[in-house]
């Protein structure tokens, strides 16, 4: 993620009293459009001062004028309510969930809601639109409610004026108010609709001075309900437009030359005979870049082979060398957790284990894609991106134009999982569109995405613990090494790594939260010459796998049931209570205390990640030495669940994607290049291999405190390892799992 995206999320969370409304009125067009902006700058770019201020006070500093909304409502005279949502829909159901939040507090009838992607057209800050890290609901829940409530009160007071009754007598009844009879409870016909109020409005709207009272949980109409996804009708009919589907009159197709080895650059590039290949419109060669624009994608790709290119440099690294690089050295590293004194208390019975997670491809089914239209120094990019901000900046840098002149239109995303952070295809399309003088669409092939997309960083985790004579844990030491995420120079800030000594995203989830008296975690920064970066869950995926599998090993060493062992060492305080609740819930649902069916065994894992606590039980068999997961139960507590069925869908998807990694996926490199190019050599989990999954959603709060897209994934390999151990006595520590 970017600092500005984090800050944009933070700024959005501030109370409404420190916000200003943007009003685009009004009576003349028969519509009320309201955006709300934060009172501080949404984009904080004042370097260290800003970061320190944020860190020390939680306040976004600065005096720049507010201009970017974080939510936008428009109510038309026909009573339609348009909601512009500043997060991108990539299958996680965010448009639906945030619309539920808005519609609830605004008291609109659900059938009048039309949800739209917010973009720069309405002044949204591209940094806020960055959709990452399972943060969308927690960042926007409160501000959206406050603005919606303020808008509802504006409508109420205007209706009161129009009807000449006291505002207190107006009762919201779903996109309308009804007047309560004087001295009674009856509601008088007819209702006055929001559309009628808006259409009859004369003069200026007044915004409330203070935040109106927000609904309590008992008053929710939509929050907490399994409302149907707003995007599915367009998706099941083929109408939804994704980045790969973007079209414009006169557009052509682009393809870009790729290096034979990671890190190789163009030493020399000539057009060769590409210009005379059939259907070729333009060959675009510039510093370090060679590409072709043609009438069809196939012709563009065919012409690449006719370019005259010479590559230099790069790596010829092998898989064995990568694994040697990503290893834990005898000394060094950065201390990132210290509780008590591990050395002084580490003299008991030693349990130790090392876990490995390989590289993986995101394998999102829609490869990278962007349409670029260049008009002078103005550029429009329609693309599947999680980050319009990074897309905008990379396009601006590639063309040498002002970022303000680059408009990014976020389309539906056909799967991302961290792969679509805007670093590559937008700039390629822009360079080709400018060079060819026509709009150009670039859609990567599966082979390009698999070979050249950045990968999940490989990681290795070593843990040891010391047990006393009664099986009590006296100390736990955790040491990990990972290739880069944020420190990848194409992605983030290498300088941050020099300050911190870690890649903070790869280190995510590596701290030991269980209440062992002495704990220590050491991080080793082990970059590799293969591009690695964001992959669903970030460090939480390998670190949860390692810590939770080790918990299972410790439980076995202590001759304690894995559930009881976790309950014994649950984290202190309220977090421990949440652990206990999800553990007990999943144990009950799965029948943990009872015997598994013949030939099967159950495994357990639990985690706190991104505000959410969750626990998973899987039931597995190993007939003919083939591991098969038949059933899974997962209890999740993200605070407050907005849409239980949507939450279940995220958890189910996380489990299946996690199981695909657990049993199948291993991306390898030979001679400096991907060994696999397509799904034939990189198989994914299939439908017949997917378990049935039961999800237990737990509300532990009156507000959402955690995300749901990522915390569950790392539980899967840990729970499967636990189940296979219970079944066979063999301990699997290296993904993907196979029984020899």
């Amino acid at each position, binding site marked *: 993620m970017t600092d500005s995206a984090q800050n944009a999320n933070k700024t959005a969370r501030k109370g409404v009293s420190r916000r200003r409304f943007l009003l685009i009125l009004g009576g003349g067009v028969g519509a009320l459009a309201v955006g709300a902006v934060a009172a501080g700058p949404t984009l904080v770019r004042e370097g260290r001062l800003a970061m320190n201020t944020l860190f020390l006070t939680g306040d976004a500093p600065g005096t720049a004028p507010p201009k970017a909304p974080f939510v936008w409502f428009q109510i038309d005279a026909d009573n339609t309510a348009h909601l512009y949502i500043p997060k991108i829909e990539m299958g996680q159901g965010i448009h639906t969930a945030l619309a539920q939040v808005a519609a609830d507090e605004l008291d609109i009838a659900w059938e009048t809601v039309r949800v739209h992607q917010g973009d720069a057209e309405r002044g949204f800050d591209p940094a806020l639109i960055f959709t990452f890290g399972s943060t969308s609901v927690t960042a926007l829940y409160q501000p959206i409610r406050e603005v919606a409530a303020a808008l509802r009160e504006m409508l109420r007071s205007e209706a009161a004026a129009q009807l000449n009754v006291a505002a207190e007598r107006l009762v919201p009844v779903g996109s309308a108010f009804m007047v309560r009879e004087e001295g009674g409870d009856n509601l008088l016909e007819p209702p006055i609709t929001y559309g009628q109020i808006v259409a009859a409005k004369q003069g200026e709207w007044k915004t409330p001075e203070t935040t109106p009272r927000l609904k309590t949980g008992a008053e929710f109409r939509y929050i907490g309900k399994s409302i*149907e996804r707003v995007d599915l009708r367009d998706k*099941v009919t083929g109408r939804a437009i994704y980045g*790969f589907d973007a079209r414009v009159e006169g557009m052509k197709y682009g393809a870009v030359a790729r290096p034979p080895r990671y890190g190789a650059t163009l030493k020399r590039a000539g057009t060769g005979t590409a210009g005379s290949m059939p259907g070729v419109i333009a060959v675009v060669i510039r510093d370090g870049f060679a590409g072709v624009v043609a009438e069809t994608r196939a012709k563009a790709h065919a012409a690449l082979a006719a370019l005259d290119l010479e590559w230099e440099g790069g790596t010829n690294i092998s898989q064995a060398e990568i694994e040697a690089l990503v290893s834990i050295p005898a000394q060094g590293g950065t201390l990132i957790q210290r509780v008590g004194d591990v050395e002084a208390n580490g003299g008991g019975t030693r349990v130790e284990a090392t876990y490995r997670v390989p590289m993986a491809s995101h394998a999102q*089914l*829609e*490869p990278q894609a962007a349409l670029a239209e260049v008009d002078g120094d103005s550029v429009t990019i329609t693309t599947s991106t999680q980050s319009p901000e990074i897309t905008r900046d990379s396009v601006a840098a590639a063309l040498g134009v002002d970022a303000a002149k680059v408009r990014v239109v976020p389309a539906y995303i056909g799967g991302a999982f961290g792969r679509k952070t805007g670093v590559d295809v937008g700039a390629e399309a822009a360079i080709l569109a400018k060079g060819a003088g026509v709009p150009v669409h670039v859609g990567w092939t599966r082979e390009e995405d698999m070979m050249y997309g950045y990968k999940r960083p490989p990681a290795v985790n070593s843990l040891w613990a010391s047990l006393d004579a009664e099986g009590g844990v006296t100390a736990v030491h955790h040491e990990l090494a990972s290739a880069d995420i944020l420190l990848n120079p194409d992605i983030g800030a290498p300088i941050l790594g020099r300050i911190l000594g870690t890649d903070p995203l790869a280190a995510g989830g590596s701290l030991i939260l269980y209440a062992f008296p002495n704990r220590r975690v050491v991080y080793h920064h082990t970059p590799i010459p293969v591009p690695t970066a964001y992959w669903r869950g970030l460090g939480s995926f390998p670190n949860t796998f390692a810590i939770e599998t080790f918990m299972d090993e410790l439980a076995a060493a202590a001759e304690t049931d894995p559930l009881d062992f976790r309950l014994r060492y649950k984290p202190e305080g309220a977090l421990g209570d949440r652990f206990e609740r999800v553990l007990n819930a999943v144990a009950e649902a799965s029948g943990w205390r009872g015997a598994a069916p013949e030939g099967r065994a159950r495994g357990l894992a639990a985690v706190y990640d991104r505000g959410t606590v969750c626990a998973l039980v899987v039931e597995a068999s190993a007939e003919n030495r083939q591991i098969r997961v038949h059933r899974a139960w997962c209890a999740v507590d993200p605070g407050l669940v907005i849409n239980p069925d949507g939450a279940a869908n995220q958890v189910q998807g996380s489990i299946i*994607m996690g199981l695909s990694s657990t049993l199948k996926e291993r991306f390898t490199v030979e001679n400096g290049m991907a060994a696999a190019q*397509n799904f034939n050599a990189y198989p*994914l989990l299939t439908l017949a291999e*997917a378990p049935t999954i039961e999800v237990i959603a737990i509300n532990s709060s009156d507000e959402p405190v955690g995300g749901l897209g990522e915390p569950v994934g790392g539980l899967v390999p840990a729970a499967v390892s636990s189940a296979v151990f219970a079944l066979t006595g063999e301990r699997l520590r290296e993904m993907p799992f196979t029984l020899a």
Partner: protein
Amino acid sequence: MQLTINNQVYEVAADPDDMLLWVIRDTLGLTGTKYGCGAGICGSCTIHLDGAALRSCITPASAAEGKAITTIEGLAMLSDDGEEVLHPVQQAFIETQTPQCSWCMSGQMMTAAAFLENNPQPTDAEIEAAMNNNICRCGCYARIRAAVARAAEIAQEGAA
């Protein structure tokens, strides 16, 4: 060449070995049919050719000449008063809230629709076998199983 897609005849300037997927998507702009692998593995590009499910990414356009192509855009019907009536498979995929990103779902639904046409009352094992060659990376598999079973029910209710 001439292609008949969703009962509409298109005159297309395409090379005979251009893949049908790209003629449908890029030349004709019917972008509901998706590209996933280009190798006939993932199933995102599945369409119907004379009612049979087919992977359009590895099928030359010329092989579809003179045949009836159906894409996801042609799966729903129009009622007499012009309302869109979703195919039972589409209804079931919404009812079960199956799609996440939905990039694979056109292919999933076209596969399911052709399957149910030939096997209107399938067992769970038959559904599993029929749908096992379509990849879903979001991990909607458990719901796809339920959706196809539900689609069979809806079709039966409609036929009854």
